[in-house]
């Protein structure tokens, strides 16, 4: 069987205040993804290695790590694509709890901050039935609803690296998903968040968030389109101060 070197960043605050690297040489075949390699290490070589995963099929978003310098879902990249060996580290720009496990609280807070739920000025009574939507209307936001909250886009974002108060790619994409929904009436509430100092205007359109996103959400597009929309609303507000409605 072929073997491969997997070099893993270890962080064990009880014993060492600084992270260090450890290399494991393990057997592998063409079907093994990087996560399988980590599981092999944990099961057969070193049970102390810590990392997160759950579904092993690109759905839960919990296995995000840095693979050879690039944020990846480790269950979606194959060992055979790294014949020279692979370097696995925790996702960049997040505090590290242990080994490859990062703290996502800030990310989760930001997702919540954009009010990712349906906001209606007035709920209609249940007897009146559901809020209907055409396939074309769905198409306007569908891609932005595909996010699995993996956080890879934050690990790729140099703006978030420089300023942790930036609301960031996934949260703005999520806001845009609701803003574009034909059943939605909470755009103004969300504009207060994404149009703030920490919102869309911080983005300098590096675009790497969209490159690394495993679900083709394209947060960079969501951010730029939100900029266009908010600017339009602002100008309309100046020209038409009586309000949009």
């Amino acid at each position, binding site marked *: 069987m072929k073997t491969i070197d997997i070099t893993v960043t270890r962080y064990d*605050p009880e014993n060492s205040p600084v992270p260090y690297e450890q290399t494991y040489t393990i057997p592998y075949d063409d079907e093994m993804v990087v996560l399988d390699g980590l599981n092999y290490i944990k099961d057969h070589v070193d049970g102390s290695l810590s990392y997160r995963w759950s579904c092993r099929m690109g759905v839960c978003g919990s296995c995000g790590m840095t693979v050879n310098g690039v944020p990846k879902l480790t269950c979606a990249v194959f060992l055979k694509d790294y014949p020279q060996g692979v370097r696995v580290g925790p996702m960049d720009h997040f*505090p*590290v709890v242990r080994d490859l496990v990062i703290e996502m609280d*800030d990310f989760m807070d930001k997702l919540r901050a954009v009010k990712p739920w349906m906001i209606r000025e007035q709920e209609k009574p249940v007897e009146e039935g559901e809020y209907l939507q055409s396939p074309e209307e769905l198409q306007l936001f569908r891609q932005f609803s595909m996010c699995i909250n993996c956080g890879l886009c934050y690990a790729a974002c140099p703006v978030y690296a420089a300023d942790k108060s930036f609301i960031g790619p996934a949260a703005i994409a999520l806001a845009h998903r609701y803003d574009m929904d034909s059943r939605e009436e909470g755009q103004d509430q969300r504009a207060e968040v994404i149009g703030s100092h920490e919102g869309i205007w911080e983005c300098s*359109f590096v675009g790497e968030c969209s490159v690394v996103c495993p679900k083709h959400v394209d947060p*960079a597009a969501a951010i*730029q*389109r939100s900029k*266009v929309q908010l600017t339009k609303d602002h100008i309309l507000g100046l020209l038409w101060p009586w309000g949009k409605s």
Partner: protein
Amino acid sequence: MTPAPGPPRHQPRRSSLWWLSNGRYFLFMLRELSAVFVALYALSYLGGLYRLSQGKDSYEAYLAMLHHPAVLVFLGVSLAFCLLHTVTWIHLTPIVMVVRMGRKVIPAKLVLAGNYLVWILLSGVLWYLVVN
């Protein structure tokens, strides 16, 4: 945010050379830098117009200066950066703008082609005006 309980977190620091870590970051930095050259070129062009307003001698001295090797290098580099600036921004437009015709969304490639067409047409018109 209150710090979570438990052992200390490691806060990794970003290297100041992060923009060299992949080609796309590098291209982004070049795109940002290109704005400086676009501005410098615009200033030098305005300088030329000013010299033109000062009379024939002044303008001819300006034209002669344009042939200085250092100026030629500056113009070459500026041209490269202006092209990079234009092409990269043209490629970003279909991401920013969703163009709709009725209920249909115009494909990104068409928007891109339209942008290139307008760019080439406008450049052609300018070329024609300058040469004639």
